């Protein structure tokens, strides 16, 4: 191992993808083939794809759970499921969609796109990136093991105590969930830290903070949010597990515990989380919709400020999930008002998108259809949310199917619609092939019709008084027909999503070749080949505007011209450039880590530790803990190759 130099002036050169430099970089950056590469790769694109694929596996699982529930609810007094089975299904469905699908799918896009749109070679912490993925998978398997073993969580994703505690829930069901969520929280936290630092440090020179694509704003905003929100739920689940396992008294009312403390901690996390799973999706739309409107987004600055404001306010509205818990009048009034106000920054985004359509020349692609549908669904989910901000109305609406409808308009409307549109946009970048537009139209219309057929009537079901989370309902209350329609809609929606999967599968091999920039997009990822090489850019691009590939046409050249293929050459091993947080001036040449087994091994150690805790086998847990410690030390041991060690005196 040779110590590297302490300072260098990088050469500036003009180099494209078909140059000897690019071939050298390819050799430096590419992962090993086969299983070794599979377990050790730290390539953000590979990790991003894994996130996307894994989250879609969970989407399908959660969807199947939903369909089974919809069969049970298709008519009154059905007995397809026992109450316990139904309760486990709705709990698994909720936690799957909210935790194992909704954020990871967005992390997939962000992981794949961050370095590409920022003009970087990789994320700030490539090994941490791999680690965050492995932990996500391991925690997902951990939680799903409960279903396979017949002990699935049965208290909903919100897991209110005391029903979640031992006296009412003696099986290991809630232990799986509690420990699984703490495990999962590790993935979210390190992933968020990675996005934050990548955003602040890994931008191409010249990409000052006001030239960053909005999708990165969305992700970095929620990543900040996660750093502050996730500890609340990890702590709450730890307390719950301790109450169950060691008879502590956090939540047990008969011994001085406070059931409401659970609700506070849970919603302090879970309300921000709602924004966490939609803001990056809104960011994807804010970047992709303008491509098809053939103009930049209207109001970049206010949209970004709106994103940040939403997240900040999102920490101040958690009590609106607790309007019926007997809170004082003043608290109700304050949180009601805050819940109205939080609508305003969302309105900014909606009008920005509409203005972009009206002042642009929309090209109707499948992706565009999803984004246009997204806006309408966004508004439906938004206004029904506003209704629940009104305390007296909410005390009727809450815990009925009205809220089920509302949250699905938010999660499917704002997350899934955006994700499906984004897939049509970036799939060609990822695979080099376009998705079928013809299948795409069927895909969109089936999803759009199925979704609205299934979920719009749910508003009415709720207004007609059907409570949530009931495994069956009697006839004579007027809920029968509405539920039947919803079940039919759910199946149409499922067929629509099946078509998406078919389209993905067919287009991966058979789609038309995409070329580097099939949609004529403005941002840096479209300057790379499809799929991009492991090193992303042969030289580090220089950015002079918000739309490097459109700037000539837009006349955005007051700060000079962006240069994609002329810039600093960094090829002395795995190297990347860090820039200053606001102005993106070159700051330091980073030595990037090679592929590593450490993330995978530490994840395995964590899985062992959590299994030990689950089984209350402290030896196993201890061995796992020790392995985590050793693995982390090996991981963090200073390496000369990463320029973490001093140059040895000769």
């Amino acid at each position: 191992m040779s110590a590297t130099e302490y300072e260098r002036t990088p050469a500036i050169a003009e180099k494209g993808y078909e140059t000897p430099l690019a071939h050298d970089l390819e050799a430096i950056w590419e992962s090993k083939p086969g299983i070794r590469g599979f377990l050790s790769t730290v390539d953000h694109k590979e990790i991003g794809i894994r996130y996307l694929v894994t989250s879609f596996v969970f989407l399908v699982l959660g969807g199947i759970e939903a369909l089974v529930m919809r069969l049970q609810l298709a008519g009154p007094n059905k007995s397809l499921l026992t109450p316990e089975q139904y309760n486990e299904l709705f709990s698994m469905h909720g936690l799957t969609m909210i935790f194992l699908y909704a954020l990871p799918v967005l992390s997939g896009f962000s992981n794949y796109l961050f370095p590409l749109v920022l003009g970087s070679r990789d994320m700030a912490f490539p090994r941490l990136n791999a680690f965050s993925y492995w932990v996500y998978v391991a925690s997902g398997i951990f939680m799903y093991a409960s279903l396979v073993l017949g002990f699935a969580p049965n208290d909903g994703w919100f897991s209110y105590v005391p029903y979640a505690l031992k006296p009412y829930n003696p099986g290991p069901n809630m232990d799986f969930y509690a420990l699984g969520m703490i495990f999962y929280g590790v993935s979210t936290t390190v992933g968020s830290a990675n996005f934050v630092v990548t955003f602040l440090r890994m931008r191409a020179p010249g990409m000052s903070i006001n030239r960053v694509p909005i999708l990165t704003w969305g992700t970095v905003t929620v990543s900040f949010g996660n750093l502050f929100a996730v500890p609340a739920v990890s702590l709450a689940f730890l307390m719950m597990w301790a109450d169950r396992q060691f008879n502590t008294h956090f939540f047990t009312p008969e011994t001085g515990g406070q059931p409401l403390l659970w609700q506070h901690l849970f919603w302090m996390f879970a309300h921000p989380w709602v924004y966490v799973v939609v803001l990056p999706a809104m960011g994807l739309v804010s970047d992709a919709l303008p491509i098809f409107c053939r103009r930049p987004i209207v109001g970049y600055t206010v949209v970004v400020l709106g994103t940040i404001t939403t997240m900040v306010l999102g920490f101040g509205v958690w009590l609106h999930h607790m309007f019926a818990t007997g809170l004082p009048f003043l608290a109700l009034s304050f949180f009601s008002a805050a819940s109205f106000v939080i609508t305003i920054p969302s309105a900014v985004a909606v009008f920005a998108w509409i203005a972009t359509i009206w002042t642009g020349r929309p090209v109707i692609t499948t992706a565009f259809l999803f984004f246009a549908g997204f806006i309408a669904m966004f508004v439906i989910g938004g206004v029904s949310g506003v209704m629940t901000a009104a305390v007296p109305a909410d005390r009727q609406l809450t815990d009925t199917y009205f809220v089920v409808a509302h949250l699905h308009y938010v999660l499917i409307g704002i997350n899934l619609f955006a994700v499906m549109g984004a897939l049509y946009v970036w799939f060609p970048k990822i695979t080099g092939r376009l998705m079928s537009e013809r299948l795409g139209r069927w895909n969109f219309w089936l999803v759009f019709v199925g979704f609205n057929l299934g979920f719009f009537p749910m508003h009415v079901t709720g207004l007609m008084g059907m409570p949530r989370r009931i495994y069956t309902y009697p006839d004579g209350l007027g809920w029968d027909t509405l539920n039947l329609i919803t079940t039919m809609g759910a199946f149409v929606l499922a067929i629509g999503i099946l078509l998406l999967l078919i389209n993905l599968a067919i287009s991966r091999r058979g789609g038309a070749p995409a070329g580097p920039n099939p949609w004529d997009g403005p941002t840096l990822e479209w300057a790379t080949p499809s799929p991009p090489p492991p090193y992303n850019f042969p030289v580090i691009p220089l950015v002079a505007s918000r739309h490097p590939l459109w700037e000539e046409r837009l006349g955005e050249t007051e700060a000079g011209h962006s240069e994609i293929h002329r810039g600093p050459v960094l090829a002395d091993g795995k190297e990347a450039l860090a820039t200053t947080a606001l102005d993106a001036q070159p700051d330091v040449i980073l030595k990037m880590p090679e592929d590593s087994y450490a993330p995978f091994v530490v994840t395995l150690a964590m899985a062992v530790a959590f299994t030990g805790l689950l089984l209350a086998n402290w030896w196993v847990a201890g061995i796992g803990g020790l392995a985590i410690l050793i693995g982390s030390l090996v991981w963090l041991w200073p390496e000369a190759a990463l320029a973490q060690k001093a140059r040895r005196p000769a």
Partner: protein
Amino acid sequence: MRNARRAIVAGSGMAAALLAAPRPACALGWADFPMNYLTTAGVKERPVVALTWGLMGISIAVIVLISLFVLVGVLRRRNTDVSLPEATRIPVVRPRSGLAWISIGVGVSTVVLLGMMGWTAVTMAKIARPPVDPAVTIEIRARQWWWDARYESGDPTRIVDVANEIHIPVGKAVEFKLQSDDVIHSFWIPALGGKTDVIPGQTNMTWLQAERPGVYRGQCAEYCGKQHGHMGIVVVADVPEDFQAWLDGQISPAREAASQQVAEGRDRFIQRCGACHTVRGTRAGGALGPDLTHLMSRGSLAAATLPNKIAYLSGWIANPQTIKPGAQMPNLEISGPELASIRSYLETLK
């Protein structure tokens, strides 16, 4: 009234015709949706219904308007002259900023939101307290998965427990003290008022006031375990004289067995059921299940799960775990003759 009470419980589709709500001319009326909260029979709920309709009207208007903006925008502005993939080759231009859309849109939205906020605040203040002091106080104890209601009184002999069906006097405010010994439930009678959670370790208060006589179905609204779906409650609003008569009836102990056969049934009941159920005036004094002293005065069984008819009663006693799997009441393996005997006793508990 008795018929109405029967009809409202689960399993009977007849509720509609018997409800007091006015029936519009169209095929389906509000009465076909007895748990809806877009109509009301409650003083407290009246301003809330107005608010809900108001917010809903605004919401629908917003949805229609924005959808039209999107639709018309797409139709008017779309590129029709080129087809994919050439379509994306159309030039990108720097068009007008479009910021006016945002300022006008957000400005109007803000004004509307502020209006909604104000309306909400006014409504909250209106329903915070009953217009008159409560005439009756009922202590609700929510259990997995039924409701115990204790009518409070300064006179200890007039304190009485009933289960799953509570009567209230029309035109008078009734105060509810909500408590739970197990998990969190939520007390909810849609036609009369919104939800208040029932949380172990604390006593939440709410109040209701019926405007007219009627039978109003409610249901537990906070997920509480296996039989959350079968935790109904019925509120019967009587004119004050009827209410008083009902309450007096409930306070009185169970009637004496009129025959040898009934006495045998009573003894069997005490032996098999008395550990969990109370029938005041007998040795059956269990507190785990509902008080059955005046079982036959109720319209429904098992927390508004079954109509209180003899066949359902037999089925419930013989096999509660099929009807309400997971319920606290076990299958007792009661023989046919035993069942008949117990049933004949229960039938006398009017």
